């Protein structure tokens, strides 16, 4: 048998024993030899399903070809055409559900490791100081971008390329949104996020930190002062289950847990001022990427046992394969088919455990996953001293409450048309603010799409 494609070039990683003690990147990334070998696995198939399944339609085949030819700069420039932050998406995209999953090689072996190729060329360009070069024909129109996460970043970059004057507003003290506060450094090193953001500044995006639209500048004022607005405020508000005991000390939303660790660097306490209390036995409710992130952070904060408490099974986990894999390697324990019914505490007000009900899987629900059904009288308890709720999030009320003129649905998600236009002319939205919680790459795609819509909207007047 001919070995078409061969086996995937192994990604070298930090050994488990070491990495659970630090927040450095788990994968080391390919070196030049490895990346070329991996790129050469690509069979250059005609229809390139990888590109079809890429939310930003990255020209993956052309990029891989250049890598295989060792033309890294050209590969980088190809990636940059469609994706302003390849170093980030290469690390956080759910490649197995997109490009890599539909790669013909994936039928028998692993698909081409497209994510790691993408990350390589971006890192390579960063190290070499190579950036995209383009000429900006300045326009006078001003566009406000609210939120500096993936949707805002991609929208701002494209708007600048069209020549608009772009001001980006961020409520926190650092830009980057979920890339900054949500995704831990062992998955997405912060120097990479900082680099991508410095690029934004370099091309002339004015980033205003500590500036909350709604509080500092009324939405109506913003509308008066800007010719168009993009809302990329994300889904930053945590959900709580709503069971007894959530007031107890030692109970966190995954957002709080991750903000303390990632944004505030609580892992470096007391060098950094923000504390975190993480016990020996930690239960994380949920099994998505955020749950994996929280669980793996807990481990790095010296927890002895970390459990993922999930009402379905590992197979239904919405997390990236790589994250589940890494979590399992690191010793995170999956407790499947269970659902919390209440949290238990002691007289000092600290959580001491959790009561859970056993579940079984029923018929498929709308998401295509089997519906978990509670088994009556199956409750049992588990000892825990920290509980992290990673149930997902929804759009932040702070901005929305201050902008009642914007139409939203009952979950607080903004309503937009096919051009990402909200109910207000000149006001566009994208990312988790309109999806309620999806992926970085989808947000990025929408940011770009919105930039196009804004360009169309603003250039109508001058006959273009």
């Amino acid at each position: 048998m001919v070995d078409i494609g061969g086996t995937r070039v192994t990604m070298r990683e930090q050994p488990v024993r070491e990495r659970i003690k630090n927040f450095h990147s788990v994968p080391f990334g390919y070196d030049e030899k490895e990346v070329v070998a991996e790129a050469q696995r690509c069979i250059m198939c005609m229809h390139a399903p990888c590109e079809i399944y890429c939310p930003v339609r990255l020209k993956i085949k052309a990029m891989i070809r250049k890598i295989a030819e060792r033309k890294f700069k050209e590969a980088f420039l190809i990636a940059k055409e469609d994706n302003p932050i390849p170093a980030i998406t290469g690390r956080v995209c759910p490649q197995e559900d997109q490009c890599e999953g539909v790669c013909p090689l994936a039928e028998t072996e692993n698909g081409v490791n497209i994510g790691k190729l993408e990350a390589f060329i971006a890192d390579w360009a960063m190290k070499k100081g190579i950036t995209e070069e383009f000429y900006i024909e300045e326009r006078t129109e001003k566009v406000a971008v609210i939120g500096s996460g993936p949707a805002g970043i991609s929208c701002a970059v494209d708007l600048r390329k069209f020549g608009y004057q772009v001001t980006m507003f961020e409520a926190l003290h650092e830009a980057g949104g979920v890339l900054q506060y949500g995704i831990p450094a062992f998955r997405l090193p912060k120097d990479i996020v900082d680099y991508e953001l410095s690029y934004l500044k370099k091309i002339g995006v004015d980033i205003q930190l500590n500036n909350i639209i709604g509080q500092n500048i009324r939405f109506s004022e913003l509308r008066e002062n800007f010719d168009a607005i993009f809302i990329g405020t994300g889904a930053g508000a945590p959900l709580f289950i709503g069971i007894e005991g959530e007031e107890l000390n030692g109970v966190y939303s995954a957002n709080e847990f991750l903000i303390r660790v990632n944004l505030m660097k609580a892992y470096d306490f007391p060098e950094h001022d923000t504390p975190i209390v993480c016990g020996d036995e930690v239960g994380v409710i949920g099994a998505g990427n955020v749950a994996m992130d929280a669980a793996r952070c807990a481990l790095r904060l010296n927890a002895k046992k970390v459990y993922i408490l999930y009402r379905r099974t590992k197979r239904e986990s919405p997390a990236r394969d790589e994250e589940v894999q890494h979590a399992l390697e690191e010793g995170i324990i999956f407790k499947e088919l269970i659902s919390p019914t209440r949290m238990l505490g002691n007289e000092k007000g600290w959580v001491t455990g959790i009561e859970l009900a056993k579940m079984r899987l029923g018929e498929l629900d709308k998401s295509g996953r089997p519906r978990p059904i509670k088994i009556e009288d199956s409750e049992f308890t588990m000892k825990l001293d920290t509980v992290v709720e990673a149930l997902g999030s929804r759009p932040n009320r702070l901005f929305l409450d201050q902008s009642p003129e914007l139409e939203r649905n009952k979950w607080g998600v903004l309503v937009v048309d096919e051009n990402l236009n909200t109910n207000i002319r000149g006001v566009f939205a994208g990312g988790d603010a309109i999806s309620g919680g999806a992926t970085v790459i989808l947000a990025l795609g929408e940011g770009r799409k919105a930039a196009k819509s804004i360009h169309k909207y603003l250039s109508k007047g001058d006959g273009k």
Partner: protein
Amino acid sequence: MKYKITRKEALNLEDFLVEVEAPLVAKKFKPGQFLILRIHEKGERIPLTITDCDPKKGLVSMIIKAVGKTTSELSKLDKGDLLTDIVGPLGNPSKIEKFGTVVCVGGGTGIACLYPIVKALKAHGNHVVTIIGARSKDKLVWEDEIKEICDELIVTTDDGSYGYKGVVTKPLEKILKSKAVDKVIAIGPMIMMKFVAKTTEPHGVKTVVSLNTIMIDGTGMCGGCRVFIDGKMKFTCIDGPEFDGHKVNFDELMNRLSMFKGKEKQAMKHYERGTK
């Protein structure tokens, strides 16, 4: 952008006033709101109630008690020093309208937090009685400023070194019994607010308390500031900071405030070691 300290004044051994240049905050500030600041790149985000504001000059001031690491560090700074981050105003403004007779109760640095509220209440034509309390005379802050703007001022100290001896609830009870009070507003230590609410409840007087909880972002993202009002989960930063005092579960809240006590001590030790 950095934020310059334009005035710094020690009020006693623990309490101090800091005035900073924060034009964005000053422009939109309304009584009852707070801000979050970070001293330096490694600093934590701490919420502080704004006690005074000059929108024209872009200045806001706060009165702070040096209790933990960050507030102690802040107390060592001086005019001209720079703070890394300030964001605000955060939280909902106090509801200010003509209520009639309003009793404002302040304890500790909460006294200063009352200042803009009392001012606004007066501007709306209310009769304002203010009761302020401290552990002892030297711990009493902002007395003259408050005195100037309210109709009646009652001072209490725990040790009797000044004003009435005892806690603020004593004169409060007396007033409630002697005249019609339309509203009570209390700002101060959790325990004080708890007992103010307890005192007013039998009289059926609407009582607003301003909660100072654990916070990180102050924008509704973390849920660390969650409180239970009438059993329902609320976020202090975006739903508060003012809540109906009769519906707040103070015991639960005081317990949550203790969550990082051990860590705070550790941070303080680390800091003291570093400054020696």
